[in-house]
């Protein structure tokens, strides 16, 4: 019954994407062309494939994860198409590849379930470290795989396949491997009734329980220093704090995490010029309008000029915002679909996060609980970080917006994330 609804909604999302492309065509006067049909077909194929995989490999999973994700992909696709039809064509391929990835995840976990990931936890940790370190390979290194620096951050890897160069951000997949490792590690190590130690008038958990927190703090600082990637470092650290808190319900982790994060933030500000620039652009984007503040200022203009219902797809100027199809896709949606469009986007994210935490609450064993909570938190916090950056709530951290930003690594990572959540929900309704 609800599976049928899921299928209907996915067709609806494909129709919304195609309708949006039609509107862009009409507004820009190019005439309705094959892009409309192609978009409808690709959305149907991509999400249809994941839907069929869910029916086949995880029939008891909740049907509420895929539709909001499809809506997000549809809304952003309209904007990507509007800003760069060429990139939109590539994004369609990425959608298909990401969907294939999600199908693969569901198929691999079909027999054994998420226990498989628990078994290979240290392999996953190794994979995380390798993926995080991969962009550090020198750009002129011999061999097919090289690191790449773009926009001042070093998070790209180029794989030279001889006939084609593939670019991807390993961090997007590292996120999943890391959460899977952490869930297994915490489920093994930290007992709910952890022994406590007196420290003056406070009682605190055993120091060795806090050790992973400090270790990861050091690791994320390393990411920050070596790759100049503020977003990934913040996300990494926040995920660990959240999962430690979820595993133990000890508030001390929140306090310790807050203090370490605060200390890290202040020292990063003092030590790194690029962090200072980000903070200054956040506090007053108009002080250096032509320079560092330009992107944020354009984003704010876009959101403002969008007003309530937006200029209409194809009728605004979101192409004026630097990185409008990646980090600033939310501002592009705000300009052309208005406040109404942005509220729809945030509501869709809220649905995914709420359903994700619902899965975590219902999960029966600690590992699955932590895995679902960690994946959901990572998804939600990443969304919050970049939206807060665009909306000037926090300094811009430059991280992709799940399901919306243009780019293959992000889509592949988030499709796999949703597939994992669905798989967990399947296992808990046996």
């Amino acid at each position, binding site marked *: 019954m*609800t599976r049928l*609804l899921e299928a209907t*909604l996915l067709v*609806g*999302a494909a*129709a*919304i994407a195609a*309708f*949006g492309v039609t*509107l862009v065509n*009409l*507004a820009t*006067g190019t005439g309705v062309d094959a892009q409309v049909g192609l978009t409808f077909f690709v959305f149907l194929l991509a999400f249809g494939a994941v839907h069929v995989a869910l029916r086949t490999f995880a029939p008891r999973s*909740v*049907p*509420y994860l895929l*539709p*909001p994700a499809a*809506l997000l992909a549809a*809304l952003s696709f309209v904007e990507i198409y509007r800003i760069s039809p060429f990139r939109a064509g590539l994004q369609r391929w990425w959608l298909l590849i990401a969907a294939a990835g999600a199908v693969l995840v569901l198929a691999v976990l079909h027999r054994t379930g998420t226990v498989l990931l628990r078994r290979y936890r240290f392999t996953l940790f190794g994979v995380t470290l390798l993926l995080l370190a991969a962009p550090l390979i020198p750009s002129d290194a011999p061999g097919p795989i090289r690191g790449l620096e773009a926009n001042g951050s070093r998070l790209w890897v180029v794989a030279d396949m001889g006939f084609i160069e593939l670019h991807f951000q390993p961090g997007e997949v590292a996120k999943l491997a890391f959460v899977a490792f952490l869930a297994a590690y915490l489920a093994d190590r930290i007992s709910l009734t952890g022994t406590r130690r007196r420290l003056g008038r406070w009682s605190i958990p055993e120091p060795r329980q806090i050790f992973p927190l400090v270790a990861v703090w050091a690791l994320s600082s390393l990411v920050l220093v070596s790759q100049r990637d503020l977003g990934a470092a913040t996300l990494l650290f926040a995920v660990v704090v959240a999962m430690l808190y979820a595993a133990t319900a000890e508030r001390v982790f929140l306090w310790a995490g807050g203090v370490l994060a605060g200390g890290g933030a202040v020292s990063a500000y003092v030590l790194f010029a690029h962090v200072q620039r980000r903070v200054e652009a956040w506090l007053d984007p108009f002080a250096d309008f032509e320079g560092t503040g330009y992107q944020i200022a354009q984003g704010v203009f876009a959101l403002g000029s969008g007003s309530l*219902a*937006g200029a*209409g*797809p194809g*009728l605004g100027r979101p192409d004026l915002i630097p990185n409008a199809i990646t980090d600033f896709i939310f501002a592009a949606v705000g300009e052309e*679909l*208005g406040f*109404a*469009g942005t509220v*729809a986007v945030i*509501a*869709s994210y809220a*649905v995914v996060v709420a*359903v994700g935490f619902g899965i975590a609450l219902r999960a029966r064993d600690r590992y699955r609980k932590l895995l679902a909570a960690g994946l959901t938190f990572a998804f939600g916090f990443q969304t919050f970080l970049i939206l807060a950056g665009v909306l000037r709530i926090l300094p811009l951290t430059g991280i992709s917006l799940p399901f919306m930003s243009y780019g293959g690594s992000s889509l592949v990572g988030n499709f796999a994330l949703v597939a994992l959540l669905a798989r967990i929900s399947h296992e808990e309704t046996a």
Partner: protein
Amino acid sequence: MPDVLLTVLRLIFLALVYLFLWQVARSISDHLGLRWQRETRRRGTRVVVIRSDTQAGLDFTVRDAVVLGRSPEADIELADPYASEFHLRLVSRDGRLVLTDLGSTNGTYVNGRRVTAPVELNRGDAIQVGKTVMEVK
């Protein structure tokens, strides 16, 4: 392309987006039983006797509290020799229906399991008293 038509089309586009979200939200609320809970709060819960020698088809609505038993003084009189005088109590509060066994001789079974402590009922649950079976609607 006339501007008016384009404006209408893009408003339809936004309307479709919200229709989509509305459908998602409604199906989730159905899934969680929120709608059922809200209506129950207003109208009470209906319970139907589905198996009994003489009382099959009898239905009653629980709004506050109802006591079932063999005694003529019970709110709902059960014509079942295995039922106690005052067998069980059903209480409806905030859209939730709670069953309490009143120390009956032969016990109360919910979905085949004997009730030892007050238990919350959901739609479709079967209550068995002696040879009488009731269903929560």
